[in-house]
């Protein structure tokens, strides 16, 4: 891994992002972009001070929906850090693989308003389709960087980012590409999506006045998650490529476990989740004892958290009770398809810095969640390798093993 980029509710550079997570900053705020007075949950993890004028010309602003804009900004950071110009993007040996859950959902909403509610000044904007399409971000990255290799967009709901990074890792390992720009972006905070998630009963409704307290993974009083937006992008390349060009290496993707519960569209399955962790460890050819930290899926819902902890016990045995396991969703909210990319980046930074970021708001841990949730304060500890867990509606699980890079 030679490049990293991020746009998030707690910061939009890698340094700000890590500092924000480590210091327990919350990015959850009141939603002010539209009227939420009739919504039960009125808060979300929102990116602050994202000014498209700083990053895009007029045509790009027209063409790119918010998820594409945020993803492209993160990708630009990653590519600049990786000094992509030395990677010969035009060779066909460099590719792009991005994830997203709902893509250009804002443009859908605007188009439907235009058609059915007459809320816009004239008929459907001609840029609606290119703004909506899920592949817009992958294409925009290739266009901006001149990347001529494989260009694929992947959607496995909330594990999209984890699967995108894992699949990119496999492309490189099998030798079909030398480097891949990969990750995910999401901008799902629209009134329709907010109400739709609320209808599932999984959004936190009790903390509209204190948004930073809303998401409480592994806590007795947890009441669900909040939506969020953001993007995280990595540049992965083969070790040979990175060493040949003397690139700085920030960490190693060492294993990838991807599977499907095949049980329910909405409920996770303990066996399937545990299997994904085992697959990742086997792929990395390391024992569970080598894992010093788990970056959890940790949604803060009644269902997910104890199930994830039981699955961790299936894989790690008695050691699970004292294993450091934290959830960035307590600070960021749940950025759906992008959450797993944001959390993979957090895991990389945790390994790099030998520091587990905290689970915010975990004041009274649930005894049914028998792990060490790293409550409220980051903790220094030696992390040679870590897991990044992501699970999704539909049962698509993606687990990454991230190892400290040692030359």
């Amino acid at each position, binding site marked *: 891994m030679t490049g990293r980029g991020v746009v998030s509710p707690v910061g939009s550079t890698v340094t700000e992002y890590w500092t924000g997570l480590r210091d327990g900053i919350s990015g959850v705020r009141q939603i002010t972009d539209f009227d939420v007075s009739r919504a039960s949950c009125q808060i979300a993890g929102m990116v602050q001070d994202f000014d498209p004028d700083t990053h895009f010309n*007029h*045509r790009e*602003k*027209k063409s790119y929906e918010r998820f594409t804009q945020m993803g492209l900004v993160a990708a630009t950071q990653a590519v600049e850090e990786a000094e992509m110009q030395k990677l010969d993007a035009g060779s066909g040996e460099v590719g792009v693989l991005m994830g997203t859950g709902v893509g250009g959902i804002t443009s859908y909403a605007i188009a439907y308003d235009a058609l059915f509610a007459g809320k816009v*000044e*004239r*008929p459907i*904007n*001609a*840029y609606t389709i*290119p703004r909506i399409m899920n592949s817009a971000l992958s294409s925009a990255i290739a266009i901006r960087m001149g990347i001529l290799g494989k260009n694929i967009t992947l959607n496995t709901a909330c594990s999209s980012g984890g699967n995108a990074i894992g699949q990119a890792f496999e492309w490189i390992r099998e030798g079909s590409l030398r480097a891949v720009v990969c990750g995910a972006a999401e901008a799902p905070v629209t009134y329709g999506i907010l109400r739709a998630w609320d209808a599932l009963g999984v959004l936190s409704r009790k903390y509209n006045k204190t948004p930073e307290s809303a998401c409480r993974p592994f806590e007795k009083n947890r009441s669900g998650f909040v939506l969020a937006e953001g993007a995280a992008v990595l540049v992965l390349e083969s070790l040979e490529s990175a060493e040949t060009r003397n690139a700085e290496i920030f960490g190693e993707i060492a294993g990838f476990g991807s599977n499907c519960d095949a049980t329910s569209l909405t409920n996770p399955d303990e066996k399937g989740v545990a299997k994904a962790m085992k697959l990742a460890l086997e792929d990395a050819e390391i024992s569970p004892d080598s894992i010093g930290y788990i970056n959890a899926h940790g949604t803060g819902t009644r269902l997910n958290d104890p199930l994830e902890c039981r699955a961790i016990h299936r894989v790690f045995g008695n050691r699970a009770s004292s294993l450091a396991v934290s959830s960035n969703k307590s600070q960021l909210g749940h950025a759906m398809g992008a959450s797993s990319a944001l959390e993979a980046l957090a895991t990389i930074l945790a390994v790099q810095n030998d520091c587990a970021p905290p689970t915010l708001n975990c004041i009274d841990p649930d005894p049914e969640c028998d792990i060490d949730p790293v409550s409220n304060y980051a903790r220094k500890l030696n992390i040679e390798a870590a897991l990044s867990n992501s699970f999704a509606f539909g049962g698509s699980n993606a687990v990454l093993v991230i190892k400290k890079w040692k030359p």
Partner: protein
Amino acid sequence: METITRKEIEQTCLETIAKEMGLKSGDLNEGMNLRDDLDIVSLDAMNIIMALEDEFKVEADIETVLEMQQVSDIVDHLAERMHV
């Protein structure tokens, strides 16, 4: 109904193009080439013509519009449609 002049159609065209393309209407003139001078691609042209159709309550011929070269071609087409 008040009679509209070709000059008024031209002014509205320039303002609509400027808005769509993020330009100042005062910097535009009807002799400009749509692609070379104004960087208008087909999607921009669609948005511009839809806005003008709305404004003037006329229906343009989309295929004709997409073949146009200069701002004046749009003005002429709309003027013809409105019998100006």
